[in-house]
């Protein structure tokens, strides 16, 4: 498969390896040490690291700045960009800024509503939606042009991704929605955290029936549970999350101090099962504020060492 960018993630996926990505949230302050520390912990265990963009609408260090810190220490970043906070001028401008540091991957999102964060009284922008942002980056890269039509000198070479939530409603349009994102130019997909494996597999079956797995790389989203409390919170409070009772019962069935380990075990078992599912091209391991566990998960899932490309 021919390569469109210099992205390491693209090279690994196109070489037919299962890709592994993880996620880091930038700090709520200007000290870069935290993000560097996280980068150091997971560097050798993943192919690229997503850097979230003011996730859950909490104001943080900018995703782009944090990506640059990672890039400078030799970690391959995936710049997450939400359409909530920036209009098309700012988005295109930040894409160029990222490309100037040879940040080669982007994930296009709409972003959680600002009412969930620390600026509930703020405006939101949503000049573009996430699919239109995918189109925008592809246009900038492939046509070498701004949305306004002018030529870009040294167009950004981004490997472009989008998110998919196989569990959000209505279920019947979840596959058509993926098809739409692919039509807009999404080259890789990172899914919402998967706990309901049966439902995910059913979604994948429908994805495969339409041959969509051949048009994009689907990376299954994994988040280990730290405790039964976290599992209940995810089930009841996080929109679009599907946590089966069996997971909650299993965590509740072990003593409190062993729940974290049980959560890791559940995650590893899920990866092992999903590795066999046709169309799954890799895993996106989001260990929220628990990055030190990523190496263990990757190793125990048989995804280590990472391929050299």
């Amino acid at each position, binding site marked *: 498969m021919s390569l469109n960018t210099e992205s390491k993630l693209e090279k690994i996926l196109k070489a037919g390896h299962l890709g592994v990505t993880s996620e880091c949230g930038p700090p709520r302050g200007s000290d870069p040490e935290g993000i560097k520390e996280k980068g150091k912990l997971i560097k050798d265990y993943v192919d690229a690291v997503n850097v979230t963009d003011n996730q859950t609408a909490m104001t943080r260090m900018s995703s782009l700045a944090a990506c640059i810190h990672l890039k400078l220490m030799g970690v391959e970043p995936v710049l997450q960009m939400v359409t909530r906070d920036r209009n*098309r001028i700012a988005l295109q401008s930040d894409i160029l800024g990222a490309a100037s540091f040879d940040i080669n991957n982007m994930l296009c999102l*709409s972003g959680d509503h600002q009412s969930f964060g620390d600026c509930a009284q703020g405006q939101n922008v949503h000049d573009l939606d996430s699919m239109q942002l995918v189109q925008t980056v592809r246009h900038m890269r492939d046509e070498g042009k701004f*949305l306004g039509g002018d030529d870009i000198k040294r167009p950004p070479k981004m490997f472009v991704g989008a998110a*998919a*939530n196989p569990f*959000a409603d209505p279920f019947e*349009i979840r596959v058509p929605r993926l098809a*739409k994102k692919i039509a*807009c130019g999404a080259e890789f997909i990172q899914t919402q955290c998967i706990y309901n494996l049966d439902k995910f597999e059913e979604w994948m079956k429908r994805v495969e029936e339409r041959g969509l797995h051949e048009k994009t790389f689907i990376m299954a989203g994994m988040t280990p549970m730290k405790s039964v409390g976290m599992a209940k919170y995810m089930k009841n409070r996080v*929109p679009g999350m599907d946590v089966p009772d069996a997971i909650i019962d299993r965590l509740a069935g072990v003593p409190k101090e062993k729940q974290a380990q049980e959560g890791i075990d559940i995650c590893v078992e899920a990866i092992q099962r999903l590795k066999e599912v046709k169309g799954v091209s890799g895993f996106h391991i989001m260990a929220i504020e628990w990055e030190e566990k990523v190496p263990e998960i990757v190793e125990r899932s048989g995804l280590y060492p990472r391929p050299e490309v």
Partner: protein
Amino acid sequence: MIIAEKKPIEEIIEEIKDFQRILILGCNECVTVCEAGGKKEVEILASALRMYFINKGNEKKIDEKTLERQCDHEYLEEIRENIDDYDAIVSLACGVGVQFAAEKYLTTPLVPGVNTVCLGANEDRGLWTERCQACGSCVLAKTGGICPVSRCAKRVLNGPCGGSTNGKCELGKDVDCAWQLIIDRLRALGKLDDYEKVAPIKDWSTDRAGGPRTVTREDVKI
């Protein structure tokens, strides 16, 4: 129609406490239908204010009037001959009416008595909900007649976002997900295949972004 809701009376009192002669001015159109600024609401507000100031030992002259429309030169002219009898007007019209009156009577302070909320409809007894944000280039033909601009919290034109749950928006259980409604309607129309057509990047210059909007019709001008 334009939906408005009454401002808290404390806020109105704060704005008018230094005036002696006050006219409460209602409007017979939208704000009457949504029960925020019609004749009835003018009466209620005027009595409450009179009572309040009498109790404070500061009786004021508070008159009532409701115009056919406040967003219309012709009807606004009806108060011209008495305008100097008042130190201030509390207008219960929408923001359009308040401004039209302010522009006409330059030296009379105008205080809004309602918050103008949205363009919406009376969905149920005591429930008014938004339907349009006057984006200036209507996409309803492509979205099953349901508006993603005004009814989706993220104005997603290719929705739904990942937060849609059981037909509700990620904002919470009280808010319908506009995209669930769009999909339901496309299904009812037998046009679910249309869902996969990508909505292009929208020209927002006809929306708020383009500055104050104007409609000019040569054929209507005299």
